[in-house]
């Protein structure tokens, strides 16, 4: 392929359709994880963490709302944030598999939180320099919140990993269980690669060194062993989800679908 045809190809791929798909993926990641965390409301192991997890959920749902609103505008079909959040089925959701995994115990929630926040913090930092002004603005806002998410999860993983025999075992088990979903954080399709080449999206591979460094530092402090290279599960971005997402969406969407157009 010649350079000229490659750039023509990239321009075609960096279309409004690609931008819509890309923003939707970011929004779905944030909403699905936000909803998962909200499932802890009233059920966390202690009051302070109940409040913390609800706060984290609020941040993520707030980020999702901004991203959905923008995605809807880019798509130009009149879909607003509610239509995108409540009226799409599982196969139309494009979040990574990591964020839809069930909460499990508190250790599993904290490990999932660490793996996601260690990625999204530097990712939003890079995205705040996006050539797309709206995305840059949203990212500049979100990065400040993700700094708190990362610190919260890191402190808990250290406390649990370097805690009792039981907390160590549970945290190690969660890490082993969730590790195979981390590869998808770095995967990009053709449309997203074109957007990255155009300075709109962020090259996910470029985030890898910082993610590795953060995760390794926390695991070392937590006396946990980083899982070895393994086969990485994927499919979320193209709508092929684990069985857990459908159940989550059913609960999340039922009210809106049962009472279309209802308002407070």
């Amino acid at each position, binding site marked *: 392929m010649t350079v000229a045809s490659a750039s023509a190809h990239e321009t075609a791929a960096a279309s409004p359709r690609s931008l819509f798909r890309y923003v939707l993926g970011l929004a779905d990641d944030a909403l699905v994880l*936000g909803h998962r965390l909200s499932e802890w409301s009233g059920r966390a192991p202690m009051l*302070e*963490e109940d*409040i*913390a997890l*609800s*706060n*984290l*959920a*609020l*941040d*993520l*749902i*707030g*980020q999702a*709302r*901004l991203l959905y609103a923008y995605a809807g505008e880019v798509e130009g079909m009149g879909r607003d944030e509610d239509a995108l959040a409540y009226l799409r089925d599982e196969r139309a959701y494009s979040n990574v598999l990591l964020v839809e995994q069930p909460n499990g115990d508190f250790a599993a929630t904290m490990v999932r939180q660490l793996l996601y926040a260690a990625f999204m913090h530097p990712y939003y930092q890079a995205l705040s320099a996006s050539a797309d*002004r709206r995305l*840059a*603005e*949203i990212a*500049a*806002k*979100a990065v*400040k*919140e993700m*700094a*708190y998410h*990362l*610190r*919260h999860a*890191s*402190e808990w993983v*250290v406390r649990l990993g370097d805690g009792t025999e039981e907390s160590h075992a549970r945290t190690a088990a969660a890490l082993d269980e969730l590790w195979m979903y981390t590869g998808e954080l770095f995967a990009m399709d053709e449309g997203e690669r074109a957007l990255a080449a155009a300075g709109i999206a962020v090259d996910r591979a470029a985030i890898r060194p910082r993610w590795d460094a*953060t995760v390794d*530092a*926390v695991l070392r*402090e937590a006396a946990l062993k980083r899982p070895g290279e393994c086969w990485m599960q994927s499919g979320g971005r193209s709508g092929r989800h684990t069985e857990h997402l459908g159940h989550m969406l059913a609960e999340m969407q039922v009210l809106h679908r049962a009472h279309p157009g209802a308002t407070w």
Partner: protein
Amino acid sequence: MSASTTLPPPQDADLERARAAAAAVVDPEIPVLTLEDLGVLRGVERRDGRIVVSLTPTYTGCPATLAIALAVETALAEAGLADARVETVLAPPWSTDDISDAGRRKLKEFGIAPPERAQRGRGLFAQETVACPRCGSTRTLRISEFGSTACKALWRCEACAEPFDYFKCL
């Protein structure tokens, strides 16, 4: 616009009234702070003849954002400016450095420790020092980085044994 000795046109008086009305609205969760103290009032201008008041959210998911926008709309209507519009702007992102000195003083008097410094640069496991808003001691302990609202953390003073809210840096 050229300099003039005549009275300002009526729309300028309206703009001033709109600014004063919006600036005096108080935060629904921290009622000692006005929007001006909080630093979320980003602009009051006339666009195509219509007054537009720009607000910026503190946290993206803060439930008070909507309540604040509604309160501003109400205040504008009460000031006789029902035609004015409220819009949200994200950039530059709000920071606790945007809280005015008066706002910081009011927070402390209300029993909330004002934010110490901007969040930037704080490392992964770094600790911060927060003075108790009641007795002033720095022998304080962070209980949780997340408190009763998105913007607050929960702390306890080891000197006077009182728990307190800390307006955390963003």
